[in-house]
């Protein structure tokens, strides 16, 4: 009975899951603490991460011995909370508000760099910081332009985006930068 054979063949194909675009298979890993140098000092400043209506979503802190703030948000409606630089290492870090799921934004940004500026995309995946906060990490590079993106969801649909730019990959692994990443915590 050809129809039955055809039906069985069709069901087998579907049962085997052929044709589904392969989902991104990624496992969470500990964020780690970066490289040992330079060491993080005790001069830390803590700042709030808020919704545009002022409601607190979370906090983070950064090392003022290592980072110089060149922009600080003066109202909860600002898109960026802080822009930090380290002149010695040509490192610039921006923390800004993020909406939606974290893996969408942090995969979209390097994809645009790859399409429009021919950046090469690095590994991607969830990393869990010391306080249990999941951060989705992607990276992209082009010649001496190295970029890292971390996205964390602090409440359903709202969170934080950390973008880091440097002219060398080493500052993106520095202790004070990882200390900042490990300090991100959602308000319970």
């Amino acid at each position: 009975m050809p129809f039955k054979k055809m039906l069985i063949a069709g069901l087998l194909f579907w049962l085997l899951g052929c044709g589904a675009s392969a989902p991104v298979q990624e496992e969470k890993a500990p964020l780690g603490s970066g490289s040992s140098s330079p060491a993080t000092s005790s001069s830390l400043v803590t700042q709030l991460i808020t919704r545009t209506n002022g409601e607190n979503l979370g906090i983070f802190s950064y090392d003022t011995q290592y980072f110089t703030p060149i922009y600080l948000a003066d109202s909860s409606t600002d898109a960026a909370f802080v822009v930090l630089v380290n002149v010695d290492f040509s490192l610039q870090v921006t923390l800004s508000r993020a909406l939606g799921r974290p893996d969408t934004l942090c995969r979209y940004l390097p994809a645009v760099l790859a399409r429009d500026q021919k950046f090469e995309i690095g590994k991607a995946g969830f990393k869990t910081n010391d306080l249990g906060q999941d951060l989705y990490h992607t990276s992209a590079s082009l010649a001496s332009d190295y970029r890292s993106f971390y996205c964390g969801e602090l409440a359903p649909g709202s969170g934080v985006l950390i973008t880091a730019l440097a002219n060398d990959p080493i500052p993106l692994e520095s202790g004070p930068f990882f200390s900042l990443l490990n300090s991100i915590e959602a308000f319970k």
Partner: protein
Amino acid sequence: MKRLLLLLLFLLLASDLFALIPDRRRLFEDREENVYMLIPAIASLPGLGLFAGVLGSFSNIGGSGIDAAVTEANTFGSQSDIHIRAYALREVPLFINGLTVEYWFGDIKFADFYTYLPGRDSPDFVIPQTGKFKYYFLRPAYRLWQRRINLTYNLVFFKGFGVNGEGEEALAASHSASLDFLLDLTDDWVDPRRGIRMGYSQKLPAPTKSVLGKNSENSIQGYDQELTSKSYNLGLYIPFGNQATLALYEERFLTTGGEDSGQVVSGGSLRLRGYPAGRWSDRFGDTKIAEFRYNIPINYQIDSIFAKGRLDDLQWALFYEEGQVSPLNDRQLKENLHQSSGVGLRALIDAIVLRLDVATSEAGFQTHLTIDHAF
């Protein structure tokens, strides 16, 4: 005088040209009553979980001429939350002979929906999204001359759910509209084996409210309205003996307007079955397909809970496709073509074509289990 001579020449040749148009193998009105098929399936997709679903198609219900289709699939288990529900009523006759209306409703939710950036240089890097939307589609159609001339107006009302500035779920609803014209000079509207088919589609200004719903205040239509999208397609069906057909197809789309914005615009996407849907899109695109179809006559009356109707033929197919997209309508459309090829098995049950295609490309394998020919 020259024009008059040309007109005379056209009139003299017209009868010969009309003689080249193949007769219809069957008439739409002569379709068998109450033909249907239901394809139940369970699928386990890595990362998404276990699915149960059904794909159904019903033709000429109760002799009314009305067709219907249903797709329903759900995950069960806690791994993810996905549901797909889509229902369609087609060929609903209106008061004028040849005038019908079609209505679709879809309620779709994907926990993980993988998309690609638009653009010729779109990287092979998927962007996961949570898709949750409702889709309403109304299509009045006017068909003449044994469905050889088809004029359809397509009105779509899309209700998507996103995230607003406070991270809360927000509804964005908007309309889109288009006009399709099809000149079908083949021997059959469902499974053509000889003749030629030409189609044209153009985006039209959409209403802000209709019987389907009303646009939300946050609907982003301003920039979209600046764009003009058109597409052309041409299908050529060449018979080889009584059982084989070589089907050739080309489709071009083009989008103009809003060039000053510098944005990468998706005016359409390539119809390459070996790539994920929507993998290649840009302002301009060109797809070419060659498909060899071989029919095995069966003539078997199916009368089961899964299907009812006469299985006229089983059809095997081999196909090769290539295409490219570009931000400009230039020679880039012919360079570095994306290629895809595959095999297909189709069941021709009266006026329903159940199609299973397996295609491969540099992106891997893709399977299509659906109703109707690709072209």
